[in-house]
């Protein structure tokens, strides 16, 4: 048994909002040399492309845990809030 985040939509339910609840200013991320978000996010929503020096954030599989809000050293968020009512992760049991 293994947690494979490529298959996260098979075991955790989401009602994805088109409007992302977290928005990054990627130019700020380019100046960050820590990028704790990439290692700490439990849902692998943050990926750093070293070649193009570009941070990508995908909100689809966000578990709304709050980790990135705490570990970001650069205040790179132009928006960090919870999804609109009814959208986002929907735990069934857990």
């Amino acid at each position, binding site marked *: 048994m293994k947690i494979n985040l490529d298959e996260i939509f098979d075991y955790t339910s989401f009602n994805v909002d088109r409007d992302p609840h977290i928005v990054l200013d990627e130019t700020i991320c380019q100046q960050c040399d820590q990028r704790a978000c990439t290692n700490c996010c439990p849902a692998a929503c943050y990926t750093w492309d070293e070649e193009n020096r570009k941070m990508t954030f995908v909100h689809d599989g966000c578990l709304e845990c709050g*980790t990135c809000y705490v570990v970001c050293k650069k205040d790179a968020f132009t928006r960090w809030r919870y999804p609109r009512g009814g959208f986002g992760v929907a735990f*069934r049991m857990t």
Partner: protein
Amino acid sequence: MKRTFDAIVVGAGPAGSSAALTMARTGLDVALLERGNFPGEKNMFGGVLHRLTALEDVFPEFWEQAPWERHIVKKNLSFMTAGSNFSVSFDNEAADTPPYNGYTIFRPKFDNWLAQEAVKAGATLLTRSTVDDVIIENGKVAGVTLLRDGAELHAPVVVAADGVLSFTAKKAGLRQAKFSSSNQGVCIKALIDMPKEVIDDRFGLVREQGASNEIVGNTDGVRGGTFLYTNFDSLSLGMVLELASLEKAANTPYDLLNNFMAQPQMAKLLRGGRLLEYSAHLVPKGGYDMMPELVGDGIMVAGDAAALCIITGLNLEGINLASQSGVLAGKAVIEAHKQRDFSKASLLTYRKMLEESYVLKDLKMYRRTPQMLHNDRIYSQYPELVCSLMDEIYRIDGTPKDTMTRLLLRKVKEKVGLKNMLADVYSGWRAL
């Protein structure tokens, strides 16, 4: 939509629903706001709910009323390395009769049940309602606006029970703008499908008895711990990892949990299991010293939003503290309505009641624990020490044995260092 209530509770988790229930029972017109489609949809935790003494007058036979999985009779504490595991197990007959000391529960079921109890008592539950901002009038909190359609809800008092990041408390100016990553942990959890009979046999349980296991070690040196709890026909396996330590780690949280599941002793317990759900959430682990202001004009903060959480390694407490704080916030609102005074000075009765209850007494008592747990040796060197000590005690290899004292001294020197050990025993003694 524009409506006025006697009180608004932000967040229908254990703190919020306890507050709303307390107020509604005395006839106050309370709005209970929940951002999910139903209460509990957004909520996860390790899995063990401790006895909720705060609600025992409302639910005298809680175990007959609340939805739970198993009641905990067996507590294990383990020290684990990559290839070995040393456990201390306490199986207690006294925990097998009501009122039970603790239960495994599922939050989407439990939180929904508690919120519906508040509704039965007369509270108005508004789901799919994410709070956008607090309304400030004459310097006092006077309500909230919702993200959905900009709806305004007015009340002379707001209870912020919106969880660890509490944007309600932040917008009311009660919490710091930035959290320290050493004060927060992330809890990640795998819910694992397993037939009841298999769980009963593997963990030595009958009927609806449950086991909880806290495990130190095998986290690749990252500060944190692992838990394994038995639900009725599933297991909850997860880790709480300190963010300041995880930031510097070579592994992601799910890598650490995957490695943990593959550890030989753990793999035996999980064999045949199938992943049902994966979840994660922050845990406010900084204790007393990370608490925000609990009270402002027209507002109080309860539960995780107030950082009411105790992590000692042996015990993980949160919901019981949340529920108690919610009940007390509710009582303070009732009193404020009697006096028709919702100023900070009036609402400080909440803080006073919390100080007199076990909530702040325990948080103060464990004030030094978070600092003590910042010690990296706990998470790798001590489990190594314990397991290698046991290995040598039991090993028969044709060489003469050391006396126990000489063996212990040698192992301590080798694995931890004598000075470190003495310092750690002292700080552990002070913190616990």
